[in-house]
């Protein structure tokens, strides 16, 4: 019988540099938060027309990627693919770290982060936000138990039920996250039943891309035993499939919008006339985040290349961030259609597309999520044996 042994990472010079970068990113985000909270949100690019900005889009990216980072563990535990099993521990940890980072960025983006205990003690169950708070808590508990069981009984059959529960829960979690962007009847672009499945598809591709990058980063920091190359063939095929599935859902979202007369104005805005949004959609998501990685993953000249796999993962993540920005900001920038078919003048809130230019502070707040996730991964990997050594025969 084959079994896998794991080891803790060593704090090599490169690992320490990574640790410092993550710590600085987190610290910079906290300083930006202090600046924004002490002055008020007027120092950001956000406004009454665009109340959710870049930091929320980045926090959402982290939360969506958290769900998908669990892919590798799920495939091993739920679908029995043994090739992925050595990476299950890291997959589990990365999922927890990304969720913690994303939620922290979301917290410091609040108008009143000091009210966190109110959010944890007062629940309005008609709000998908409130329900999500419980779902996120459940994710920490279920996936945390899954990780503990994996550590305690790596060969035991008890792992599978926890793996199945985690798999189902992460589907629920991404459904909840997608619903936040899909239930707003009065906002074109944020009222679609396809949002939850779209977010699930995105979580699968983005989460796997982030997982590949983190694994490669750990290898680069001196942990050669991580053995990305051993599984890169399977991961390459899986990532390409998930990118294609995400694209299909994005295509469906926009085609449904175009087919609906009430949504056509918004679709024209986001795909053609909206300035930065069409640019990010076509250039960022479609060209950089979909077409390029598919070529890098599937075209024969690139198929065996480790660099191409990493570039594809990076392009997928960057393109996914561009899409997340479009999905979050464009529906706010598009003017509210309070008087359908009428010409409205007099107040900028109702008369035209709202301007939104993110500030450095918002970028730093958003980066806090990634920085914190990186810190958690590096510190946990130093303390807990997470990375696989070569398989051995029993």
């Amino acid at each position, binding site marked *: 019988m084959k079994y896998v042994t794991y080891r803790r990472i060593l704090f090599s010079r490169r690992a320490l540099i990574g640790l410092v970068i993550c710590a600085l990113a987190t610290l910079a985000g906290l300083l930006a938060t202090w600046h924004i909270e002490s002055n008020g949100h007027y120092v950001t690019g956000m406004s009454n027309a665009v109340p959710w900005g870049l930091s929320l889009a980045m926090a959402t990216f982290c939360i969506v990627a958290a769900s998908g980072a669990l892919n590798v563990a799920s495939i091993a535990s739920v679908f029995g693919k043994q090739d992925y099993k050595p990476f299950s521990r890291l997959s589990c940890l990365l999922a927890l770290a990304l969720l913690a980072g994303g939620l922290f960025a979301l917290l410091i983006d609040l108008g009143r982060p000091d009210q966190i205990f109110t959010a944890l003690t007062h629940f309005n169950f008609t709000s998908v936000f409130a329900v999500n708070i419980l779902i996120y808590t459940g994710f920490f508990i279920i996936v945390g138990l899954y990780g503990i069981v994996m550590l305690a009984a790596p060969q035991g059959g008890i792992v599978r039920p926890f793996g199945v529960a985690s798999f189902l829960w992460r589907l629920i979690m991404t459904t909840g996250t997608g619903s936040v962007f899909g239930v*707003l009847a009065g906002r074109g672009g944020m009222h679609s039943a396809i949002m939850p499945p779209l977010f699930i598809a995105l979580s699968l591709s983005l989460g796997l891309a982030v997982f590949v990058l983190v694994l490669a980063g750990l290898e680069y920091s001196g942990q050669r035993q991580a053995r990305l190359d051993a599984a890169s063939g399977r991961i390459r095929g899986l990532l390409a499939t998930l990118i294609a599935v995400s694209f299909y859902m994005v295509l469906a979202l926009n085609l449904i919008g175009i087919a609906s007369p009430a949504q056509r104005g918004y679709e024209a805005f986001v795909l053609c006339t909206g300035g930065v949004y069409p640019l990010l959609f076509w250039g960022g998501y479609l060209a950089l985040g979909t077409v390029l990685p598919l070529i890098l993953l599937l075209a024969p000249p690139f198929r065996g290349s480790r660099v191409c796999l990493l570039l594809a993962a990076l392009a997928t993540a960057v393109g996914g961030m561009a899409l997340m920005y479009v999905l979050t900001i464009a529906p706010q920038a598009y003017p509210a259609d309070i008087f359908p078919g009428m010409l409205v003048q007099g107040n900028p809130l109702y008369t035209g597309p709202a301007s939104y230019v993110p500030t450095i502070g918002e970028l730093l707040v958003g980066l806090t999520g990634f920085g914190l996730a990186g810190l958690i991964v590096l510190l946990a990997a130093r303390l807990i044996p997470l990375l696989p050594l070569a398989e051995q025969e029993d």
Partner: protein
Amino acid sequence: MSANENRKTACAGESCIQSRRRFLLGAGATLLAPGVLLTARPALADEAGRQRWGLLIDTRKCVGDCTACVDACAATNGLTDNGRPATDAQWIRKVQVTDPGTGHVAHMPIMCQHCGNAQCVEVCPTGASLKRADGIVLVDKHLCIGCRYCVMACPFKARGFTHEEVKEPSPISPRGKGSAEGCNMCVQRISKGQLPACVEACARSGHEAILFGDLNDPTSLIAKRVVAFGAAALRADLRTDPSVRYVGVNL
């Protein structure tokens, strides 16, 4: 005239101010009878749900260059102009709406529509965004965490966010940096038997374009006019059931 009758005609055919005067006189008489609380007035708003306070905006009377309602709202609620229109608090916004087919032009104020099915209330995670039994929608600043989901959810963009320190806080309208906010129909004034500031200011300016009253009472002037004029709701297709209705514009 009893206080009850006055509740039905908060802004009557003649002048809103006269109506209010009559109301106060009636209220006083009601209170003097039992001989207690001589200086207090009965609250127009009770929370038992007997009323549903609403506004009827007659766009035929609303004048384009008049900002009386906007100014009165700002003065009453301590909405300071910081010279930053994108983030400054504005609970009432005036717009001009032109029908491209007919060329018909209408001016109107847009404020919180105090929806029966308020989206802001549904999406608020903590219950800070709430609807009272008398139909008024407002924000409990003690519970608001500043997530701004209500601002996102409002189909009318009527909910805002306090982007900076409140420099001149109003004693009757609590606001706080980092919280959501919006028109509360001057609930504090209503509870003292006064009309909302915008209604009073509009009447004082001589336009009388905004009528305040109880939509639930079929004998009230507002309810009668809503029926008589076929007053329309903004984005009626969304079924949010607003308490603010408009006359004289093809919505």
